[in-house]
């Protein structure tokens, strides 16, 4: 944990409100980035970030300090995003269907042309947005933010096995989306 953040955490835990505000200033953009990646929607991400800091403020006395403050905030943000999305889904009467296949309406292209890392990153961002929320949450938390399966399962309220299954399905979908097989290859495989 960076020294200044560690000092701010200690001061905030001792009841220093200004220190907590400073912590928010230092970390809110990063927290917003995670929230946006989890929800795929800026308006939802803003709500999630606000909830996350309120929860962090109320639960700061429980933060043991042996983990990074940022990791602790990731977990809180993941939990808030999950709650937010479940509420939203209920409100809209939508079913978050993991099995719903994602149609690839982009033309098949040559994988060699996609090798450029910058292009891949931009397409990856789009592919992540296209993933079903339940798959996106897991792959973002595991592969971008490096949270262990156990923490992901705990924050999303699922079993570790379910988290691993979702991760596998998300990675597979991302790969298929980013590197679609050419028509002739697919025909050869049949």
């Amino acid at each position, binding site marked *: 944990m960076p020294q200044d953040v560690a000092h701010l955490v200690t001061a905030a835990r001792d009841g220093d409100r200004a220190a907590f505000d400073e912590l*928010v200033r230092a970390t*809110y953009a990063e927290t917003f980035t995670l929230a946006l990646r989890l929800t795929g929607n800026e308006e939802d991400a803003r709500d999630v970030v606000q909830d996350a800091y309120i929860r962090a403020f109320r639960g700061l006395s429980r933060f043991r300090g042996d983990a990074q403050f940022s990791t602790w905030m990731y977990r809180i943000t993941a939990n808030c995003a999950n709650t937010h999305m479940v509420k939203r889904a209920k409100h809209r009467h939508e079913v978050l269907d993991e099995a719903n296949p994602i149609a690839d309406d982009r033309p098949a292209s040559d994988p060699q042309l996609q090798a450029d890392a910058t292009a891949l990153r931009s397409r990856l961002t789009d592919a992540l947005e296209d993933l079903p929320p339940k798959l996106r949450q897991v792959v973002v938390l595991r592969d971008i933010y490096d949270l262990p399966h156990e923490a992901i399962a705990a924050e999303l309220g699922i079993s570790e096995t379910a988290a691993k299954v979702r991760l596998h399905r998300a990675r597979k979908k991302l790969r298929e989306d980013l590197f679609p097989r050419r028509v002739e290859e697919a025909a050869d495989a049949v």
Partner: protein
Amino acid sequence: MRCEELSDDLAATADGSVLLGRNERRHVERCLRCQAELVQYRKVLRAMRAMRTEVLEPAPGLLSDILANLEAAGERRAIRSMIQGHRAAYLGGLAAATAAGAAGAIVYANRARRVRAAS
């Protein structure tokens, strides 16, 4: 061995969480399709990890909204703890008064017993 049988393990192999067995390794070494799939998983994982350092700038106003919400939450908490403090003081006073009353009654009963015994 068919490529489909191996497909599930390739992603986990790319991130190092699974090691392929001898037969699987031998298949991948000879199979261009599985090799390509493995390379693709590695590229996806590398790109994902690179996103870790990327920070997306929120629209203006988010910071002030968060701080205002925290302020409101802090005030609510202060009011709640004040109410709880008053409640605790009230209950404490009530308990002290009850204890004093009980002690007085015991002293009075003892004294009455002693007077009765002396007469």
